[in-house]
């Protein structure tokens, strides 16, 4: 009678769920950078001061309390080993505008280790970031998931 193979011992990833990603200083989308960004993607900037919606990603990523390398290091992962973006989700309550200071808050939601046919072993990092106005009014909420390939465990 066939027995299922014993589960692989992949080890435990660092316990980072709940770690704060709150920004230390407000993030401001400059009109000049927004213009350059829009033009780099083949469109003209909005005339009414609206910023390109992709700033949901940039403002939260740049404005959170640590660098990408720091976020990886918190997960005991060397950024040189190549984190890969898996998914992004955003819900807007308000449009983004240039010149407006935004507060960034957030946290690591989970870090889950999994076997991977392609990578051997990987950790799935999920983190939540939110933008709000200085008075606390919500602007957007975004959740990103990254794949952290664990080559040394493969």
């Amino acid at each position, binding site marked *: 009678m066939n027995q299922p193979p014993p589960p692989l011992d992949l080890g435990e990833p660092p316990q980072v769920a709940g770690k704060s990603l709150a920004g230390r200083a407000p993030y401001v989308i400059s009109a000049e*950078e927004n213009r*350059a*960004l829009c033009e*780099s*993607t*083949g*469109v003209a900037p909005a005339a009414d001061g609206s910023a*390109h*919606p*992709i700033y949901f*990603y*940039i403002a939260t*990523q*740049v404005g959170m309390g640590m*660098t*990408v390398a720091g976020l990886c290091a918190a997960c005991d992962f060397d*950024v040189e080993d*190549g984190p*890969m*973006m*898996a*998914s*992004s*989700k*955003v*819900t*807007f309550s308000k*449009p983004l505008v240039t010149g407006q200071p935004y507060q960034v808050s957030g946290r690591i939601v989970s870090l889950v280790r999994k076997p991977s046919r392609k990578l051997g072993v990987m950790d799935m990092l999920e983190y939540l970031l939110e933008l709000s106005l200085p008075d606390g009014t919500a602007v957007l909420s975004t959740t990103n998931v990254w794949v952290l390939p664990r080559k040394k465990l493969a």
Partner: protein
Amino acid sequence: MKAGDLLKPFRIASVSPEGMKAWARFLHDPNPIHLDPAMVKAKGLGDRVINQGPANLAYLINMLQTAIPNGFIESLEVRYVDNVFGGEAVEAGGTVKDISAHAVTRRISCDVWLRADARGAVLTGTASVLIPV
């Protein structure tokens, strides 16, 4: 506009390596796979620089904003399926899945994607866009 309609596509004829240098500044991300073909090759990822994922997503957002003028993107969810390389042609598109009426807005729910001409889907996802009634 009705369910089943195709959204007007948004096309980038050639993804610019110079644009990647600009995005490295926007993102404060000096990862050399976006800047140096030799580094991409050394990592076994190909022989051309790799576009930043958020830049690919920006093309998709441009498609939504062009296809649905005066729309407010309420939500967007995407999976990063594959890389986009320097010099590639990509096209963002979508289909309308559903339109629902609300007090002062209509919500347009869509399937969306970004495809590389030579290789197929690089981003797939869904979007919800509000337009005034």
